[in-house]
């Protein structure tokens, strides 16, 4: 399961091809399959825990994840160059998500409430400035063009006004996983690493080197520029486009149906 620089990760259409290719015998021996399953039970368990407290008992989630793990091993084709951990992660998360979809669970507040949430923060700040005091629900409702019920519902759904704006725009301080767009990923969860590594392998060597210098060695853009002999502007552009490419790759990888 090592990610070398020479691997070409399979594009996402391979998932669909795998579905159809189930009739093909697995290229792994029985012993190898068993080892893969036992080796990755920890991963499947950890992925199951990510869905804890949506109301399902842990046992059920672990069962879904374990079945998905076995499916992953059955479907895995080492010849395709995708690391097993990444492949299994996608399959397991997909199965867990489907588990909830099939149950018809409303996991999040309605879309209207979510959209209102985005507006409430801005509307509140604007009204505080304008009025010199906190607004009432009636004033917020008028400002956002919604009903008072909707505003109260948004507050109750935990999406009320935010007095501080957590728009940390200081790029220099954020680790790689945070820059990839997940709100709370300052952490290196096993599954994120598993998704990240094959995505990184899609980048040319120089871009990978720049990312490593920036996020692992902690060099500033100017230091990197000096190191590789280009302008700091150029480094900045390369970083942006590399991160965008990674985002795309991971987003594609993460959507399992």
């Amino acid at each position, binding site marked *: 399961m090592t990610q070398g620089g020479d691997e070409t990760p399979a594009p996402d259409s391979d998932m669909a091809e795998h579905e159809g290719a189930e009739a093909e015998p697995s290229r792994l021996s029985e012993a190898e399959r068993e080892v893969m399953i036992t080796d990755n039970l920890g991963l499947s368990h950890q992925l199951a825990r990510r869905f804890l407290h949506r109301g399902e008992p842990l046992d059920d989630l672990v069962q879904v994840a374990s079945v998905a793990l076995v499916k992953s091993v059955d479907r895995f084709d080492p010849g395709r160059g995708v690391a097993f951990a990444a492949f299994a992660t996608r399959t397991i998360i997909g199965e867990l998500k489907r588990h909830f979809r099939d149950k018809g669970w409303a996991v999040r507040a309605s879309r209207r409430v979510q959209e209102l949430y985005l507006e409430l923060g801005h509307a*509140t700040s604007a009204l505080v400035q304008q009025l010199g*005091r*906190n*607004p*009432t*629900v*009636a004033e*917020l409702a008028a400002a956002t063009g919604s009903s*008072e*019920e909707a*505003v*109260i519902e948004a*507050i*109750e759904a935990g999406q*009320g*006004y935010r007095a501080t704006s957590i728009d940390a725009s200081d790029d220099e301080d954020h680790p790689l996983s945070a820059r990839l767009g997940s709100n709370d990923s300052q952490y290196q969860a096993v599954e994120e690493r598993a998704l990240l590594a094959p995505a990184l392998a899609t980048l040319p060597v120089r871009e990978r080197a720049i990312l490593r210098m920036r996020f692992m060695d902690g060099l500033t853009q100017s230091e990197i520029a000096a190191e590789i002999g280009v302008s700091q502007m150029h480094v900045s552009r390369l970083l942006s486009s590399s991160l965008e490419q990674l985002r795309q790759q991971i987003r594609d990888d993460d959507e399992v149906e």
Partner: protein
Amino acid sequence: MGGDPLLSAPSDTLGVGDRVELAFPARGDLVVLARLVTSAISARAGFDIEELEDLRLAVGELCLLALQGSDRRHGDLRLEFRVSTDSIDISCTLEGAAPALTARTADGLEAEQLSEQILSALVDEHGREQQDASARAWLRKRRKGPAA
């Protein structure tokens, strides 16, 4: 106010002297109902959103104080809301519950102290009463600006 009361009263204010009651089974997972109703009533009584948040939290603590020392398996929590010219009064009464069989845990005593602290900080007056099988906790919060 003259004319038809239903038509002349603005829909977004709770009139002085209006009283709202809410009762539900005395279970922790239903306390959220108290917060919901408190939000709605406070909004209509003209409190701003900061005060709304204060009152939501405070009413939750009232429910917890009323639930203290009960077995939390029987009984009802009954909330009463009264709006006056200069304040809102909320009380929470636990009715028909059996006393707790086990002594309160250290965590429980800690939480009770925290409830009192939170109420002291967020509302103007609050108190508790205990009578046999019923416990009552209440609060009063005054309006900041001119009365509605």
